[in-house]
């Protein structure tokens, strides 16, 4: 990863988010400022320490004077910006997106090893999803248990690509990638070979820890037992940059 160029002349701007006046460095994104100030912004693909992806579209916010919604993870702050993060319209969109995810693959929480520790599950609860209005897609996908320590269940995957990014950007192995199109996209190891046969995987387990759902888990866990720890990521990422 290229070392970030030092920017001694970064200015500080003030902006207004949800009727609160805040200050921010001009190279910060909206989601960073919100998280810093404990303004909850949902996201399933963004993770502090990884590159911006902009895929889940849950962090969409309204900016005064702009007709279009913007994704908070990929939008830089600007002087005088007025942002709304929690309007009626946004809540409706977020709930619909979460429902789209539930209907897309098999997310049956009661039998999931990540039950109770799943970002998708807790987000659905926060968005008030009590049932899914959309028809379920019900396409079965394989489960890859070939790795001696970890397991990949495509049925629980939401294609956030956190695993792809952490493996490439932090571990430097680039074992993971994405193949296919549309709803049939799959994360793959090496050139779509079983994970256990991967020649690039270092078995570091970072992909498992950053996975927001029960798609990537440790072998031998039972329903509700898979607890993930993502604290290492920002620390590791900052040390990388500081070198």
């Amino acid at each position, binding site marked *: 990863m290229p070392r970030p160029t030092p920017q001694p002349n970064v200015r500080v701007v003030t902006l207004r988010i949800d009727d609160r006046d805040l200050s921010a460095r001009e190279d910060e994104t909206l989601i960073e400022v919100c998280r810093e100030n404990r303004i909850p912004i949902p996201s399933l693909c963004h993770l502090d320490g990884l590159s911006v992806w*902009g895929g889940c579209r849950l962090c969409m916010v309204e900016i005064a004077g702009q007709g279009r919604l913007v*994704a908070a993870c990929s939008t830089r702050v600007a002087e005088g910006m007025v942002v709304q993060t929690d309007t009626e319209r946004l809540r409706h969109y977020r709930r619909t997106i979460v429902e789209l995810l539930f209907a*897309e693959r098999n997310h049956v929480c009661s039998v999931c090893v990540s039950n109770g520790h799943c970002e998708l599950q807790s987000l659905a609860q926060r968005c008030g999803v009590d049932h899914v209005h959309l028809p379920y897609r019900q396409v079965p996908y394989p489960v890859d248990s070939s790795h001696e320590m970890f397991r990949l269940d495509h049925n629980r995957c939401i294609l956030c690509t956190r695993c792809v990014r952490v493996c490439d950007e932090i571990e430097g192995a680039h074992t993971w990638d994405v193949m296919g*199109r*549309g*709803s049939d996209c799959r994360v793959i190891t090496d050139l779509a070979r079983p994970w256990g046969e991967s020649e690039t995987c270092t078995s570091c387990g970072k992909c498992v820890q950053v996975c927001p759902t029960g798609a990537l888990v440790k072998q031998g866990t039972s329903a509700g037992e898979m607890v993930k720890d993502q604290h290492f990521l920002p620390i590791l990422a900052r040390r990388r940059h500081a070198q």
Partner: protein
Amino acid sequence: MHLEDLAEQAAHYRNEEAHIEREVRVCVAASCQSSGALPVLDALKSACDSRGAGSCKVKGVGCMGLCSAGPLVAVADKECDLSESLLYRDVTPEDAPEIMASVCGAPVERLLCPTDQPFFSRQQRIVLENSGLIDPDSLRGYIAVGGYAALIQALTEMTPADVLREVTASGLRGRGGGGYPTGLKWSTIAKMPPGQKYVICNADEGDPGAFMDRAVLESDPHRILEGMAIAAYAVGASKGYVYVRAEYPLAVERLELAIRKAKRAGFLGAKVADTQFAFEVEIRLGAGAFVCGEETALMASIEGLRGQPRPRPPYPAESGLWGCPTLINNVETFANIAPIIREGGDWFASIGTEGSKGTKVFALAGKIQNTGLIEVPMGTPLRDIIEVIGGGIPDGRAFKAVQTGGPSGGCIPEAHLDIPVDYDSLKTLGTMMGSGGMIVMDETSCMVDVARFFMEFCMSESCGKCIPCRAGTWQMHGLLDTLTKGQGTRADLARLEDLCEVVRATSLCGLGQTAPNPVLSTLRYFRDEYEAKLLGDRAP
């Protein structure tokens, strides 16, 4: 090289052909080839040889426009009036001797295709000015009609700022669909600090029923190279890419040949026309993903990455290919550049409407008499395009709607046919200019089915990166499928409309944001057809 040298060259090439009494032009673009133009070309060549050496010439040329009447053959006799060539339609190899034997004033009546019909007379050709006249494989042919003069003029007589001024003054807007002012885009990239910059020609034409870019590349490939080189000079780029879909093998072949010949002749390379300006062009082939026509996905694909879009900003003008400032324009946009430099920006701005200048190439397809390629000034009423130029609907059926803008556009009903076609007027109708595909539908078309078709297209072309597009198009397609089968309820219709809004507002790239347009526009104008298909009238 100076303009005078080039003019001398052009005159020389024209003189070489001066002794030819009869020129026979056979359309060898993809459409006519598929209806058998190559055997016709061979047959005419051997008929020409037997007629006597030197007096006649048979050459393959680019698209003449009226694809539905292909293979097309044009015959120009010097003893008649050279400007008025005869056009023959549906020619077979067996007709060749008869065509060759026919004399001036006594054409082969049964094959004759009148050239004074509105299809030809109502067009104004700028982008297609050489199309159907010159041999796309011949650099000499291009130079003979004034090719590369605009590039030499720009390099030797104009500063980059002069070029930018002309392009800005022309009012040209991006022909890929968005309609972003070309001059503004160029100026932005020119203003970026000096260093590596790129010029990309987007030839990943993927809309169903659109074939404008293919025809331009197949008919006049040097024109694109010239436009790109002028652009590179104006913005300070030294490297260009043409991203063309691999499904256009003929266009790729002709473009490759054109690049080789232009390089050998010094119109591309380290010292373009003996000036200090350097410009190289490479071809990159698309692997069949529609989303790669989106600029950020296209650049990812050129870089060798998975072809999927990324959030903008940063825009390509600031951080594009490999992080460098990148100018990315459509084929037709580049095809307009040489005439703008040659004739001046004000000339171009005098054509078209207030907000949309110049002409636009449209591909007429579907239920229309004259299927093919046309070029008309911006502001031409839609009714003229369909009923006069297009010749109306075949089989005595009634017109129902015309679909513009491909899967991102919408359908326009009979009631709005008198609207003058430009970027802004189409937007008010809930559709868009798009790249120029026009699919005409008659009374037998079911509009719910049309919406379902386009949604299926978007669903299978979604890259899968963002959730609203990936899962939303699947859901909308399912709902439309249920509706077309007459099994949908009022609640399904409400859900469809709701999903349209979510997908439009939250998708990452243009493909997702505009995927609901075919549904929204058919709902706007043909809601009764949706209602008629509902199962019972249950409350949502």
